[in-house]
């Protein structure tokens, strides 16, 4: 099944049957540009990739099995750690799933707080996505500029709940900490600088840069049918021109009352659905998230403060039943399939992570590209191995 060479390199392809022009190259699992521990086996003819095989599972931590042994609030820290670059989204999805099964309705105040945190997390997650992507393409400076802004968001998170990366913030029935005094003003300061400085600079410096565009605009083109068939969601799907966003189609946590646009890849420099388009959707989504944040902050200022632990049950014991709930995480649709048998532990919790399905299309798109484009493709799908492997 796997052929080992004298140097110990294990390949799934039968190396004796290889055309003599072809070479099997391993990318990873330790590699600067694979965004985590991912191993990609490439069969190349010089620089051209003839076949690609991703190998995942290096970060598998048996999340689903653990969930069967802890109670529902105990699942939250585990859920954080799946997509560790956008932890607020994971816990929000799970909290909403359990709340739907238990029929818990949270107050508008808690909903607004959740939306603020989710959108701040979206901006923070996209800064990593776009920043590391430009770094992979070779421009180091935009990454640092974006990380500077991400630091401001992480400072806000730390101020609120004490953690910078993995928060355990969204609880079943509420959130863990209320927003501190001065949070609104600090967030507005951040947004002002972000919209005035970082975002225009990002567009000028790198997004419309000719070298960047030429690297990406004809690479990794994913047609809409392929995207739907391989369940690409979120910015990956919208990059192919399909304007579907769960926050608009099946809104949750009060999203129906906010005014924002769904960002779609327009094929402005090449065919629609290229790596550039997927990246473009993430860039523009940052501005849309800023828009939502302004509205949410305005709303928050007019509301009375409510107790964020008001609806948090003492023991979370959903009735017997099952539910599949999806939310719009920064990387796509995060789906939780929860089967409850009436106990305090979940009977089965299956997570459909957006990066898992995004990675499944990789072998299809990678055929025929150059090795440099493989890097561009992995980065444009914006994968986080924690979420793929759980």
């Amino acid at each position, binding site marked *: 099944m796997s052929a080992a060479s004298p140097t110990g390199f294990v390949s799934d392809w039968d190396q004796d049957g290889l055309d003599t022009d072809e070479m099997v190259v391993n990318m990873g699992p330790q590699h600067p540009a694979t965004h985590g521990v991912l191993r990609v086996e490439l069969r190349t003819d010089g620089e051209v990739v003839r076949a690609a095989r991703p190998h995942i599972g290096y970060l598998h931590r048996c999340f689903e099995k653990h969930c069967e042994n802890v109670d529902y609030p105990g699942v939250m820290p585990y859920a954080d750690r799946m997509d560790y670059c956008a932890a607020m989204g994971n816990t929000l999805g799970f909290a909403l799933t359990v709340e739907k099964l238990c029929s818990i309705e949270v107050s508008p105040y808690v909903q607004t707080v959740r939306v603020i945190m989710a959108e701040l997390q979206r901006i923070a997650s996209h800064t990593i996505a776009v920043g590391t992507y430009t770094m992979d393409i*070779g421009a180091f400076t935009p990454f640092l500029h974006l990380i500077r802004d991400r630091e401001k968001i992480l400072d806000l998170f730390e101020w609120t709940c004490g953690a910078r990366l993995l928060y355990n913030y969204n609880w079943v029935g509420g959130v863990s900490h209320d927003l501190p005094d001065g949070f609104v003003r600090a967030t507005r300061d951040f947004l002002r600088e972000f919209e005035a400085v970082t975002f225009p600079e990002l567009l000028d410096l790198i997004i419309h840069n000719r070298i960047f565009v030429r690297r990406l605009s004809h690479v990794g083109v994913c047609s809409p049918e392929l995207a739907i068939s391989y369940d690409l969601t979120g910015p990956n799907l919208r990059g192919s021109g399909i304007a579907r966003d769960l926050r608009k189609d099946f809104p949750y946590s009060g999203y129906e009352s906010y005014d924002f646009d769904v960002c779609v890849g327009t094929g402005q420099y090449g065919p629609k659905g290229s790596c550039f388009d997927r990246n473009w959707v993430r860039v523009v989504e940052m501005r849309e998230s800023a828009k939502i944040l302004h509205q949410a902050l305005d709303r928050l200022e007019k509301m009375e403060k409510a107790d964020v632990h008001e609806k948090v049950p003492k023991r979370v014991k959903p009735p017997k039943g099952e539910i599949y709930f999806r939310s719009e995480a920064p990387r796509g649709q995060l789906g939780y399939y929860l089967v409850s048998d009436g106990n305090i532990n979940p009977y089965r919790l299956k997570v459909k992570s957006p990066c898992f399905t995004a990675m499944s299309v990789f072998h299809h798109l990678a055929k025929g590209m150059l090795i440099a484009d493989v890097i561009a493709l992995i980065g444009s799908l914006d994968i986080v191995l924690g979420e793929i492997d759980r």
Partner: protein
Amino acid sequence: MDATYAYLVWLFPAAAQWPSWLVTLVITALPALACFSFMALGPLVYVYAERKVAGFMQDRLGPMRVGPYGLLQTVADTVKLLFKEAIFPRKVDRKLFIIAPILVNVGAFMPFVVIPWGARLQPADLNVGVFYVSAIAALSTVGIIMAGWASNNKYALFGAMRSAAQIVSYEIPSLLLILVPVMLVGSLSLLDLTQAQAGGLQNWLLFRYFPIMPVAFVCFFVTGLAETNRAPFDIPEAESELVAGFHTEYSGFFFAMFFMAEYTEMFVFSAVATVLFLGGYLAPHPALQQIGPVAMGWFWLWFKAWFLMFVMMWLRWTLPRSRVDQLMYIAWKVLLPIALVLVVLVGGLVLVPATANGFPWDRYVAWPLTLLLAGFLTLVMIRALRWDKGRARELALPAGGAAPARQVVR
């Protein structure tokens, strides 16, 4: 060389009686050795400069801890690299593995022999100076391929092959563009090229045949970026694709040698570009050539070469990387045609006696253009500083202060 002989006899009167081979050996080797030692300390400064430039462009400070303002950072790094274990992976070709960095350094340091730092401050004035520089610099390509092959690593091989293809492709427009100032001056010797630009800023070859020579300069600069594997042409060491390209498997002192060679090559290229286009060791105004008893030639060459290196660093931290085939496209389909057209054009213009030394409006373009550029850059810097102070004032923080999130005000 006769100056060196005079110094030698002054120091050791007995030297006049030495056998001639010893005398020749000493007076040729000593300047070369002095030059080499001096230049070998160069990378210490260039690496520090690169890190500081990178830091400031990325809204951070760069090295600050080792020594005041981090000035001793490269010294610390060098010491660390010297002490690090030089790992030889299994199955590397040991001989090639060791020779490769040596060869790359040879290709990087040898061109210093012909670079003129002053009218008589040149280790050897070869009458094929520019040709010699190109030929020797191409030797590093062999070293790079050796490094990639000997590493027993597919990625290193990729990097080496890409580098070889890139350097060889860009040699052609590079040589053609070198021909342009050479045709104008009529000599390959670097000293002659410099002295043909005597008399001040307006005589520099950059401003002849305006706007033809500036185009040649820009294209030559681009080929130089590709020759020295700098961004946007740093595919061979594309950090995020091939880990470190051809020098992935090198560690410790061997890596230090590659590093040294890269920055030295950058300086060599900048120095050659300065000699060809920017007047070499000549000051912009003849009055500045000699301040009191001190000849300032070396300072001016340094200043101009360092400015070009700063531009290289500036570009590296701004631009992303071109893909290999796009790189090749630029070399063969953009730069080569431009270079050919320029050679034919300038060659024709040189033959016509009326324009043998340049267009009539050249002398009026030089100073205005330079002052405009310098003024523009100064204005940009002033504006950036004022914006920074304004932002700090707005947030009621000390200049360069912390993130706003910690304010507890409502």
